[in-house]
């Protein structure tokens, strides 16, 4: 395993970012649980909103990172393989974090739905679309796992493009489907009372910082793995040269 020495400033910045994210999440927790007023009809259960919506938001933002990193990979694949590898590491990291955030969004959504609507799940437009997003990115990760290492990057980048094109189509078709059938009516989130905004914004900010931190951490880890792989390949080539007659 080669030892990658990263500049100290990068390391310190990472620690700073980590503790900053934790601190903001702590502030967000205090705001959400103790300071924000109790919602009139739903009661304390509504506080899950401060965790559900930020996770759901991150789950909608990070797929874009994955998509653009995959495009960058496809562009650099032949032109600049080293940059392409970095783009691929970013695509992998963002896809994994996307799946985590979307899963949290789905699970907290289910808890909330059970408490306020009395059902765990309904095939309403927004829920169905979100579930399909989850399915698409899980299949992306499965493809990465199943394909052999030499080409999994390219195949995954291609699937990422397919998924990114599919999401708007899913959104349109499911909205069209669900608006022509009578379905349980949910009034969305409605308007948020001004006294609830601070708790919401602190949590969005905190979870955003946290998500980006995890992506960068995973990115650094994947880069390390790639470098180790390259090193092994080089050693193998050198060894084969030495034994050649």
């Amino acid at each position, binding site marked *: 395993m080669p030892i990658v020495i990263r500049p100290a400033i990068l390391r310190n910045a990472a620690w700073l970012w980590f503790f900053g994210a934790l601190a903001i999440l702590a502030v967000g927790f205090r705001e959400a649980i103790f300071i924000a007023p109790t919602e009139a009809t739903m009661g304390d259960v509504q506080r899950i909103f401060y965790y559900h919506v930020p996770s759901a938001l991150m789950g909608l933002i990070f797929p874009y990172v994955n998509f653009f990193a995959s495009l960058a990979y*496809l562009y650099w*694949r032949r032109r600049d393989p080293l940059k392409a590898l970095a783009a691929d590491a970013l695509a992998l990291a963002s896809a994994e974090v996307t799946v985590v955030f979307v899963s949290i969004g789905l699970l907290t959504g289910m808890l909330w739905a059970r408490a306020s609507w009395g059902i765990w799940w309904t095939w309403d437009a927004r829920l169905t679309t979100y579930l*399909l997003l989850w*399915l*698409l990115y899980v*299949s992306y990760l*499965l*493809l990465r796992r*199943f*394909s*052999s290492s*030499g*080409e999994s990057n*390219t*195949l995954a980048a*291609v*699937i990422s*493009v*397919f*998924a990114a*094109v*599919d999401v708007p*189509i*899913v959104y*349109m*078709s*499911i909205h*069209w*489907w669900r608006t*022509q059938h009578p379905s349980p009516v949910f009034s969305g989130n409605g308007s948020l009372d001004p006294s609830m905004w601070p708790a919401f914004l602190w949590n969005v900010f905190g979870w955003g910082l946290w998500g980006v931190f995890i992506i960068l951490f995973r990115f650094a880890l994947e880069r390390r793995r790639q470098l180790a792989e390259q090193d092994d390949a080089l050693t193998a080539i050198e060894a084969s040269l030495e034994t050649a007659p």
Partner: protein
Amino acid sequence: MNDLTSYLGHVFGHLRKDLRIEWRSRDSINGMLFFSLLVVVVFSLAFDPTAAVSRQISGGILWVALLFATVTALNQSWTREQNNQVLEAQRMAPAPASALFLGKALANMIFVLVVEAVLAPVFVVFYNLHVLGNPWLLAIILPLGTWALVVNGTFFAVLGLRTRNRELLLPLLLLPISLPALLEMVQATTGVLTAGLDPIQINSWIIQLAGYDIIFTIICLLLFDTVLNAE
């Protein structure tokens, strides 16, 4: 103009080759046919539908049966090319790679259409179907829906060529991407069978399905070269 004719010539050549191979063995079509027939029987036994209920659900069952049958056939469609390193030769050939893809997708489309032509009367008999809407619309919906399944399926099948768990990978990729198309074709088909949907709504489902077909055909053609030479 000349480029186009030569491109179409390549597509046609690949198509003819695939049709001839299939004609000699008839593996895919027989396999698909029997498989979809089994799905029809299994669903019929599992739900024991009355005439009214079967009209509601048979659109969905038809497409689910075709989807699974297509997956089983598509898994084999590229393995033929692997015998005797034909695929390597295709990769080195100066012909455009997308012509190979298009030829194969068209061949698979024809296979599935043959299966549909045989399956349709079986459906009518087994489910006591009596189409309430305009049956000619099905002549548009079936090819559009089939193309939606086949174009992506052929593309994803080539992704699986050099991966582990090839048979498992294709449905895992194809089903999530195809879900909007599946929704569109099932809604349109059920709308025609039950006459429960406004014709304008059926038209809009058909247009959405056509849009899906066009978008994904373009993406497949653009990315096929990348996938064929992925290494």
